[in-house]
């Protein structure tokens, strides 16, 4: 258009950005700069990283060593065992606890609040912290690792599952109670069937999560294939670590495909 049909003064002016957003942005940038200094961020790492003589130790991968049953395969089996037992224990205990933690099905408010507080605290402690603590308490090995992951998967499971119970249809429960049912049987017939599919699907997620976690438990002495990585890194045997990494990679990819397939069939 060549000539404006009215003077530009009638045009609205661009509103200034909201102060809260401006302050938020400034704070975020300032915090980033400060954090970067605190962690000794330096790009020179990338300059001399390629000339680091350690890279040579990554190659070749000693496949005979990697495929020797005792070196990697047995610890990997132990990893699976830790993941399986932790999932079974964690998810089993999670079943009653989740019902106690949902507003819909909790027997009383004391149970409700105490279970919530305890579970939130348990979940705030990272999985490997639990592993390290239990290694100190009950000794090095897969036992400590299974215990740690059981606790952590319990905490994850109850968080996910109790929110699904919260969202369940309350009417069957009311009907069962109105018919004079006691609390637990009423929940079992009125709510449990509708949320059971969610329980199964979360259990699968927790299993996937536990496999990933159990791969690294060994770095703090809690058993599984991570213990081999820990041992090899002490001696800078990075070729072996790379070999283990390839195996872990394959395991995780296969696992993901399988769990996607299983979940698709369940839904």
């Amino acid at each position: 258009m060549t000539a404006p049909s009215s003077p530009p003064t009638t045009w609205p002016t661009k509103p200034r950005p909201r102060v809260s957003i401006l302050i938020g942005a400034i704070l975020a940038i300032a915090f980033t700069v400060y954090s970067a200094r605190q962690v000794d961020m330096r790009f020179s790492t990338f300059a001399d990283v390629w000339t680091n003589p350690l890279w040579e130790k990554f190659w070749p991968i000693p496949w005979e060593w990697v495929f020797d049953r005792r070196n990697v395969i047995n610890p990997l089996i132990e990893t699976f065992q830790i993941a399986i037992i932790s999932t079974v224990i964690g998810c089993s205990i999670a079943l009653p606890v989740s019902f106690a933690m949902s507003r819909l099905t909790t027997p009383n408010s004391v149970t409700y609040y105490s279970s919530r507080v305890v579970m939130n605290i348990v979940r705030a402690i990272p999985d490997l912290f639990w592993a390290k603590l239990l290694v100190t308490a009950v000794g090095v090995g897969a036992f400590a690792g299974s215990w740690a992951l059981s606790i952590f998967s319990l905490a994850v499971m109850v968080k996910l599952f109790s929110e699904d119970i919260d969202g369940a249809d309350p009417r069957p429960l009311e009907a069962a109670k109105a018919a004079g049912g006691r609390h637990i049987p009423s929940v079992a017939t009125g709510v449990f069937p509708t949320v059971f599919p969610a329980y199964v699907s979360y259990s699968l997620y927790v299993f996937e999560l536990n496999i990933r976690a159990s791969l690294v438990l060994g770095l703090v002495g809690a058993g599984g294939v991570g213990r081999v990585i820990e041992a090899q890194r002490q001696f800078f045997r990075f070729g072996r670590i790379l070999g283990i990494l390839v195996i872990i990679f394959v395991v995780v990819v296969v696992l993901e495909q399988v769990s996607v397939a299983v979940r698709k069939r369940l839904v």
Partner: protein
Amino acid sequence: MAVSQPTPVETRPGRPLGPRIWRWVIAVVILVAAAWSVTGLNVSVDRLLNASGDAWNVIKRMWPPAFSIEIKRGVIGKVLQSIYIAWVGTVIGAILSLPLSFLAAGNVSPRLIRLPIRQVFNAIRSVPELIVAVILIAVTGLGPWAGALAIGLHSIGTLGKLSSEAIENIDAGPIEAVDAAGGRWISAMRWAVLPQVLPVVVSYWLFRFEINVRASAVLGLIGAGGIGSELVSQLNFRNFPEVGAVLFVTIVAVITIDLLSSALRRAIIQGGAGPDQSRSGEALEDLTGMSLA
């Protein structure tokens, strides 16, 4: 297993035997797997019996937590250190994953570019941060920068995958409008796609920060600094009251950050009128970075 024999098809209506049989089969499989796992763990009976006592002992000895000693040792600075590591890692992941996620999205990127980038995301995601850190620590030296790099690298994979999925779910109309007006690809990304996905993507960054705080605490266990290193040194000397204080500080920090970040996320998503996410779906992403798609 004998139970898994398929049952005759002529079951009477009203009594579906098939599903019930399957339920039993699955239950037996789970029990067998659990039993096999227990035997593989090599736990003697008396260790099993004594263990809970040992654990309880440790918990008892953590009380009362030795706050004053820990504060003198700078435990607050150490937990902040973990937060700085997580933040820098998240920022690195966010900045690098954003452009890559456009190149990985099926609706705006050609196959030839998209497929290799997705493979890179998958490869990164499948290697645990801790193992990346083990290697980085060897190469760059011990310290928080190695931890931040490991977290950043891992975040590129997870954030890249989530963001590119967000891009794939946008309304394609505005892209067409830019094309029809003679705009370039980059302009379509900036003006038609970015405004649509930014609120969701930023909320993913915040999710990731919450997860990364836990990850950076854990990285301390293998020497990347921060609260994890403090936990290790106190546990190694079996100073349990000090351990209690470290745990307390960790719990407070993690819960505070979770609360702040999830409040911020909710504000961003609602302000952006974003898709309505189920709460447990959000919680899941929160904890695992896996989406419930």
